[in-house]
């Protein structure tokens, strides 16, 4: 259901997790929507017996030469699975159905999310494009390199496929990242050392900040951003950043296809299928979606495996339909509030923690 780029620690983390779980529980019914609900019900009945066989389509992963599944597994929610067994089942099932992209971040659940993924991928590492994110939030290269070692250890691997700078959401982050001895140098060094194959950055705040990152002409391989039908008309990454990334041949990783916590769906503006289909129909490599239960995974698998791109006309019709709800950013709280800005980043930028300033 909800997309991948989340927050890390503190009391806020717990409350968000609780909320996400409750949203996930309503998932198969309300979330899946009219079209998908029948299929989803069948899937659940069949689980463990005859699981439907799905093949999630793949696409070119930017200029890397790899092929990536159009649906990726979000790391924050993988860290929110109830135990390792559930994480193993989720990752195993995703791989069996052709999903090969796995998102994560050094700061998700204080390392638990990376550990869950690492354990779940034991013996299957070579089937996956493993991505994690480095959480310097303005600090220097040495912090980044130290986090890289920790991420590799937790993920049980000697290299990452994709390493991205996490949560570039403060207006001075690009300056801090590109300063001498800044995190950008860590990306170059890690790539040179063969510890990471491709590098990029993520953020959910404002196209201006993404464009400032791109303006340095650093050879990014990937860039992650929120992409959904609401974004099309509001502080739009689709209009301003997606085209620029496409022009540069950078692989685009879409996220927050349903608003970050599924609120676009739970409030009844769109169905999960509409949201995911819309996001996957854009010129992106993959769409990362948070799935913290097998139920939500099955719902998304059905959508991705049966994916037919929306035409431009269909996309426009959906944008028009949600126009009243997209105009003030109420369902893109990651852009309009601090709700999705993690405590570690807040701390580095001297903002109050989430508990003190929830939005």
């Amino acid at each position, binding site marked *: 259901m909800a997309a991948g780029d989340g927050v890390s620690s503190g009391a806020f983390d717990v409350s968000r997790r609780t909320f996400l779980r409750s949203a996930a529980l309503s998932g198969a019914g309300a979330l899946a929507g009219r079209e998908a609900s029948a299929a989803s019900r069948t899937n659940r009945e069949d689980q463990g017996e005859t699981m439907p066989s799905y093949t999630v389509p793949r696409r070119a992963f930017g200029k890397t030469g790899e092929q990536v599944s159009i649906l990726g597994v979000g790391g924050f929610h993988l860290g929110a699975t109830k135990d390792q067994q559930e994480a193993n089942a989720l990752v195993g099932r995703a791989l069996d159905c052709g999903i090969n992209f796995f998102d994560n971040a050094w700061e998700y659940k204080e390392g638990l999310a990376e550990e869950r993924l690492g354990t779940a991928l034991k013996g299957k590492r070579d089937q996956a494009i493993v991505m994690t994110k480095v959480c310097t939030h303005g600090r220097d290269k040495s912090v980044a390199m130290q986090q890289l070692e920790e991420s590799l250890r937790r993920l049980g691997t000697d290299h990452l496929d994709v390493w991205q700078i996490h949560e570039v959401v403060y*207006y001075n982050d690009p300056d801090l990242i590109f300063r001498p001895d800044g995190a950008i140098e860590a990306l170059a060094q890690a790539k040179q050392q063969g510890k990471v194959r491709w590098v990029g950055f993520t953020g959910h705040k404002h196209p201006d900040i993404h464009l400032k990152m791109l303006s340095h002409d650093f050879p990014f391989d990937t860039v992650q951003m929120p992409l959904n039908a609401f974004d099309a008309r*509001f502080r739009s990454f689709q209009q301003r950043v997606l085209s620029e990334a496409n022009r540069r041949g950078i692989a685009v990783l879409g996220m927050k296809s349903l608003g970050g916590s599924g609120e676009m769906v739970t409030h009844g503006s769109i169905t999960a299928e509409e949201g995911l289909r819309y996001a996957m129909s854009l010129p992106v490599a993959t769409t990362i979606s948070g799935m913290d239960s097998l139920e939500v995974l099955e719902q998304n698998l059905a959508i991705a495996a049966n994916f037919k791109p929306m035409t431009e006309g269909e996309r426009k019709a959906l944008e028009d339909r949600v126009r009243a709800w997209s105009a*003030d950013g*109420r369902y893109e709280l990651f852009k309009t509030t601090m709700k999705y800005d993690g405590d570690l980043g807040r701390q580095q930028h*001297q903002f109050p923690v989430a508990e003190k300033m929830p*939005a």
Partner: protein
Amino acid sequence: MADTSAAIPVRPFGKHGDVRISALGLGGHYIGQAADEKTAIRIVHGAIDGGATFVDNCWEYHRGKSEAWMGAALKGKRDKVFLMTKVCTHGREGMLAMQMLEQSLTRLGTDHLDLWQIHGVAFENDPELFIRPGGAAEALRKAKEQGKVRFFGFTGHKRPEIHLSMLNVGFEWDAVQMPLNPFDSHFLSFEQLMLPELNKRGVAALGMKPLGGNGDMVKKGAITAEQALRYAMSLPVTTTITGMETLDVLEQNLKIAQGFIPLAEAEMQKIREQVQQAAGDGRFEPYKTSLKYDNPEARLAHGFPIDDQSVEVKEMLKATQNEGHPWPQVTA
């Protein structure tokens, strides 16, 4: 440098050169945070006696307490001030604005406002909702026809782009209120993007949040209160509105404002440089980056979650307990 016996300078109200208001304005939100009504009245009287003629308020401040206490203070003194309050439609219809106007006039104990402003223009679609048929724009014009308000304006603290779009919505604005302080000069800057446009058009520029709204920039040592207030008052604005919830703060501000001489550009630049680094992420301007300063009326009208720690929300909840107190005791 400041001559404490001197008056607070008065400046022309935009293109209305015959109307002149004090360079220091008394903020309405903090009046509702005074220890009690008696203290609030003493602050308002102290400000007026000290030469402040511009008083700010808002329909939704402290669920009406700010307007009511100011109304009590203005008894017999209404003609000494240029009275402003704000209406909190936040995109909702003009009829609601007219109802709020009647409440504001009653609480403030007057039959007319000098300036009525659209409060908290903070969302990208606010300008469109304001000007739509049946929207608040119609209420503003109607109120003027009825002689209940003299001038129109709007306020907001979120983004200069939203202000520009409101300015260009096709309405006859007399005033615009915005956050102006040294940090703003570097970050999503109203000073850079909005202020020159207002000056060019003869729209009165009203500065607010000279200390960032909560004074954190002073408390954390990034700047002194005097530096920040002097900086804001030295910009090409008609007035600088600042909150004063105690007589001490009033005293301190009057000292700065009386006989005020604007800083030279070189001094302004020095202050800008002093705060440049800390300004880059907006840490001292949370009204631009978070919802913290968006009141429940704005959030509810736009479908955003309300904040159960906000004083307005606490007052909203307690107000239903019917304890017999007009203003429930809650802390921010």
